[in-house]
């Protein structure tokens, strides 16, 4: 069986959940191999984690000469590895960086690229949700090594022990790939809440929340449910929450089990980021708000009274 390369999605060696989802998908296509581009010293630790989800091999690419630059060196490393192992497919998480790595890799390997897949079948046919979720597209790569970026929450990670054999891979990074330099980097503060794109429940607030202080109402509900907190662009533009909270066309795409839109009207650009959520709930004081066209359950009312009461009931039922 051919290897399927999965680029490990991690922050400083802490493996993120979408990696396990990709390994689960990789098993359908061949033999999963994880590729960890990071500090070589963390290789063994990462291998322990990914082997539980089926990684037969774990390629460790030390990032000492890679990490200070934008995506080009990562694409070079993957290219060299792909040329050595001739994988059946390459799977990468669909984030901004993952997509750019994939883009460069597609040109280097003369291979077709599919982005933002929400499912991948055993024959590598992908499913994409497009046009703000109004269409479902089935597509296939027809040339080269299929390079597919997959959105978080596209598969339930399945534990299935693999051999997890660690192999150091020495990539040669060209000077030409080191031309966009990361001059400064300020890690985002941890909120203690689940990550937006990975969370099972997302509670969002929009312009209807009314102020930065009032976002506490949204956060209290989110915390009672163990949920992540999101925001519409209107709430972000008003400065109530940073851009990293934004859900929609120019923010994050989420596909949780439960999405709760509070004080959000449901503009097409917002829908683009949440329409594939399994269950959708809205609280809005305007019964004509378009968000109600999407919901499984909606409450016409003032979020400032409905949400605190709901939070109390959720807490009581625990």
């Amino acid at each position, binding site marked *: 069986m051919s290897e399927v390369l999965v680029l490990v999605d991690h922050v400083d060696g802490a493996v993120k959940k979408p990696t396990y989802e990709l390994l689960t998908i990789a098993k359908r296509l061949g033999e999963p191999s994880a590729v960890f581009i990071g500090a070589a010293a963390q290789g063994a630790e990462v291998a322990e984690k990914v082997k539980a989800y089926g990684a037969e091999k774990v390629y460790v690419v030390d990032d000492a000469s890679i990490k200070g630059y*934008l*995506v*080009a060196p990562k694409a070079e490393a993957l290219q060299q590895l792909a040329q050595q192992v001739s994988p059946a497919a390459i799977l990468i998480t669909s984030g*901004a*960086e993952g997509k750019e790595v*994939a*883009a460069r890799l*597609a*040109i*280097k390997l*003369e291979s*077709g*690229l599919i*982005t*933002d897949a929400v499912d991948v079948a055993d024959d590598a046919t992908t499913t994409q*949700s497009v*046009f*703000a*979720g*109004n*269409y*479902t*597209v*089935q*597509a*296939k*790569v027809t040339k*080269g090594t299929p390079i597919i970026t997959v959105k978080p929450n596209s598969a339930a990670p399945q534990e299935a022990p693999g051999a997890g054999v660690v192999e150091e891979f020495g990539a040669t990074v060209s000077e030409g790939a080191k*031309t*966009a*330099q*990361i*001059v400064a*980097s*300020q890690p*985002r503060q941890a909120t203690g809440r689940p990550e937006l794109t990975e969370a099972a429940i997302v509670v969002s607030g929009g312009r209807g929340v009314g102020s930065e202080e009032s976002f506490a109402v949204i956060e209290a509900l989110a915390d009672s*449910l163990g949920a992540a907190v999101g925001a519409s662009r209107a709430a972000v533009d008003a400065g109530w929450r940073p*851009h990293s909270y934004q859900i929609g066309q*120019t923010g994050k795409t989420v596909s949780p*089990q*439960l999405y709760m839109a509070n004080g959000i009207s449901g503009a*097409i*650009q917002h829908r*683009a980021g949440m329409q594939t959520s399994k269950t959708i*709930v809205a*609280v809005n004081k305007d*019964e004509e708000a378009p968000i*109600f066209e999407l*919901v*499984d*359950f*909606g*409450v*016409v*009312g003032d979020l400032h*009274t409905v949400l605190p*009461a*709901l939070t109390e009931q*959720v807490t009581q039922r*625990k």
Partner: protein
Amino acid sequence: MNILVLVKHVPDATADRHFESDGTVDRVGVDGLLSELDEYAVEQALQLTEKREGEEHTVTALTVGPEKAVDAVRKALQMGVDQGVHVSDEAIAGSDAVATSLVLAKAVEKLNADRAVDIVVCGLASTDGSMGVVPAMLAERLGWPQVTLASVVETQGDQVRIKRDGDTATEVIGATLPLVLSVTDQSGEARYPSFKGIMAAKKKPLETLTLADLGVEAGEVGLGAAWTEVVDTTARPPRSAGEIVKDENGSGATALAEFLAAKKFI
């Protein structure tokens, strides 16, 4: 500075977008416009020149697309761009991202040969395909640095610095001209064309190029040459209408709590 701004013509997101039977997007039957996210690219291109007073600048808008795509360039001209280039060729129809980036790269190379280009400014993503990959592909093909997803752009001499909100950190990225830049909708509101701008646009140079002009073979692009194939497209069934209740004296919260409990969320 000599700046190129890449503008895509897309079907209106608020209209009824759909696919043709061959899996390509209907770009004729649905009203099109300049991809909204490329307005931010035009705005930043203009601001970059405005911030460097006293130098000579040219801003050129470039699009690849069918006949109607020229409207995207026209809008950019109305906003204040100096000149436009429209690459149009029947053979391009149905191109995937890899092929589109090839045509764009060849066009950049041709313009660069005529007069050295300093910056190619792109949007964050198109509003139809919305892959967000063309800037990286272009940088790869040109062998130029990519500084992407900028919310703030500054230049000094031949140095460019951008700020961006990455997935896990806020970063400052630096690179030397020439380079490929992409900007987000956090980079600042795009200007509206003024009446004067609309009138002036009519007299601005607008060139049309074909694949032959760029030295690209018809067989390298288009639906037949795509490295990806759309197997099927299906309109998503509208979500069946859910239950909507009016909140009266706390009834809303209770009903919602019951719904969430029934669905095992609490």
